[in-house]
């Protein structure tokens, strides 16, 4: 029905543009909030959540209590909820979406589901109904081979999954962390400062568990669950495995200071969880007498703090990349996760450097006057100023990486190292040879010391 027709029928119609990205982000927030019930929550996009509650229901006085709690919290957020419990993820999903009639037990409920619960193509579902197979139970009474032959292997698989004969694995949003500590409160905590104190206690507990295993944490995730059902996750990372509660708490404090929207307790936090998703072996260390370990530790902590404050991409180490294209010859990798260094090419003795100190990426266009078309530049204009070239060396010819490109295309560059009359040294190149391109352009690619 077009919108105009709908408006004509219902004058007070509220129209909202469909925004799948925002819907997904909201579902993701709900999933984080549902982590309070179980660490394993999977998104069933676009509008479902699947929780693996095995071993967690007793915390909420049984399955019924858990369902009641979920429905209460989600409906407070304005959601209308249909929920169901099942022996497998697919069975629970089908029950939540297609169950219409009550049943004495779980097995009966599954058998009474309509065949639409298999979520086959519309044509296949119609064929099933025309054949008189209206429920899952009808279908399950037939031999599986006949179903596969008549309606395809996907129908057989879907049926086996709903019946629990085939595994229906869950793809959780966040994996189960190896070490976790959590605390629940009878009365919600109203202040962030108090919550951080509790977090410090949890960090002590988690680090105790790490020490027992001889491991150290590389990544810590604190999740603050609010009593309104939503949650907020804050993560910090360290460059080396650590069991230093003080360091972890300093990083969390650093992270909270730089949050764009501060941690909001709302009506209070009723649960705080600290997870350590990434562990590395960490033996007991001994300080060196000359103090080397202390200095390195201070440096590592600085890297961790800067990374926490600014983000991974802003604290970098430069690494070798094996290519001769100048702008790709170095990789800037996060210092917190940098691989061991690879040696750089040693300079040619007695020769001036052939690569600049500063590189422009992308190269900046310049206007060049050369004596002969494919000769060295004599004057060039860059950033609205003319520079007269006094000395030059070149060309150094760098071809495009034709072996990486499907069309064998790419222009050859002719690099010149030039010095102007004021003594400044530049790295210029002509993009393309004259037989590759009629009027190749000039660029400045770097500045020498």
């Amino acid at each position, binding site marked *: 029905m077009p919108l105009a027709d709908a408006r004509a029928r219902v004058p007070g119609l509220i129209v909202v543009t469909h925004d799948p990205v925002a819907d997904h982000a909201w579902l993701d927030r709900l999933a984080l909030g549902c982590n309070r019930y179980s660490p394993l929550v999977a998104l069933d996009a676009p509008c479902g959540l699947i929780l693996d509650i095995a071993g967690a229901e007793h915390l909420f006085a049984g399955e019924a209590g858990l369902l009641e709690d979920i429905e209460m919290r989600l409906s407070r957020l304005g959601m209308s909820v249909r929920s169901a419990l099942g022996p497998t993820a697919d069975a629970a999903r089908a029950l939540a979406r297609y169950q219409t009639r009550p049943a004495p037990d779980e097995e009966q409920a599954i058998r009474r589901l309509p065949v639409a619960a298999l979520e086959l193509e519309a044509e296949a579902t119609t064929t099933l109904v025309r054949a008189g197979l209206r429920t899952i139970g009808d279908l399950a009474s037939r031999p599986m081979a006949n179903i596969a032959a008549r309606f395809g292997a996907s129908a057989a698989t879907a049926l086996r999954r709903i019946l629990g004969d085939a595994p229906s694995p869950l793809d959780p949003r966040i994996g189960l962390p190896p070490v976790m500590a959590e605390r629940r409160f009878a009365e919600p905590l109203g202040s962030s400062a108090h919550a951080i104190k509790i977090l410090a206690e949890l960090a002590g507990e988690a680090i105790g568990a790490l020490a027992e295993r001889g491991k150290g944490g590389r990544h810590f995730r604190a999740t603050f669950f609010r009593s309104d059902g939503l949650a907020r996750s804050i993560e910090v990372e360290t460059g080396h495995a650590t069991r230093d509660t003080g360091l972890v708490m300093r990083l969390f404090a650093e992270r909270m200071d730089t949050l764009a929207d501060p941690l909001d307790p709302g009506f209070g936090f009723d649960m705080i969880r600290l997870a350590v998703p990434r562990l590395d072996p960490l033996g007991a260390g001994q300080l060196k007498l000359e103090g080397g370990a202390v200095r390195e530790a201070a440096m590592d902590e600085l890297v961790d703090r800067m990374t926490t404050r600014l983000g991974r991409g802003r604290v970098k180490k430069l690494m070798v990349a094996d290519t001769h294209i*100048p702008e790709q010859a170095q990789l800037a990798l996060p210092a917190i996760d940098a691989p061991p260094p690879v040696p750089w090419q*040693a300079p040619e003795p007695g020769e001036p450097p052939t690569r*600049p100190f500063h590189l422009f*990426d992308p190269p900046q266009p310049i206007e060049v006057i050369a004596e002969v078309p494919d000769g060295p530049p004599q004057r060039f204009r860059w950033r609205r100023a003319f520079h007269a070239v006094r000395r030059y060396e070149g060309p150094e010819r760098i071809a495009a990486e034709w072996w990486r490109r499907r069309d064998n295309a790419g222009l050859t560059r002719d690099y010149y190292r030039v010095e102007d009359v004021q*003594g400044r*040294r530049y790295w210029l190149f002509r993009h393309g040879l004259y037989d590759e391109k009629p009027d190749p352009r000039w660029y400045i690619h770097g500045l*020498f*010391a």
Partner: protein
Amino acid sequence: MRESSSQLAGLRKRIARLATDGGPASRPAEGRLASGHAQFDAALGGGLAVGRYHEFFAADALDGTSAAAFAALLALRTPGQAPLIWLRTTDSANRAGHIYAPGIAELGGDPDRLLLVETPDPKMLLACANDAIRCTGSAAVIVESWGKFPLLDLTAGRRLTLGARDAGTTLLMLRLNAAPAPSAAETRWSVSAAASREREANAPGAPAFDLELLRWRAGPAGGCWRLDWNHDDKSFGPASGEAALSGALLPLAARRAALPHGAAAA
């Protein structure tokens, strides 16, 4: 009454203690960042003092690379694997260019020692600089700023000075596209590119720098030097050949009476 006077006496004693111990120059420097250029080092009493705050102004906006390279090479000359922390704002890559590790390697420096920190704005740059200089274990901290840096006032400069002194970290502040102004720095330099020594076929030679000492807290200012970088023995050396052309750039006597120029800049 009695109690308050004893408190006052305590405060006076504390002030007296701060006055004797508080000056940045009160504690002797733990070492020197030597350039390798004999006259340059001799004039500065062995090189740039470690654990101090030094400022390098690019003489022109186009001399930024020379100033940056001079500071980096001075820090990377020190033996060992101590990292060089380089702080800059994200937009400086567009203005001055990305720091290019192959180029540093060709100059004889070790790019693996470089820890690059890019901050979103100058405010964060200053905050990170304060953290970085308080971290022992670095060869030096280079802070690169572009244009006027109003946040770096005398208070901020003094804070940096104290931080550098307490941790024994050298702070090399790069001021690109900025005019020299009074600050808390131990030395203030103006760096520009110099014509290199000609090689065969009119090719440009090794990097050459013109340095002018604008201000020095511990001595007279006003010296000018022309330094060539030699990447084989990783040291600066006297410029030869072309230096004769620019006659005014002879090194000045090291311990002259303080120049009015230097006094005015203080």
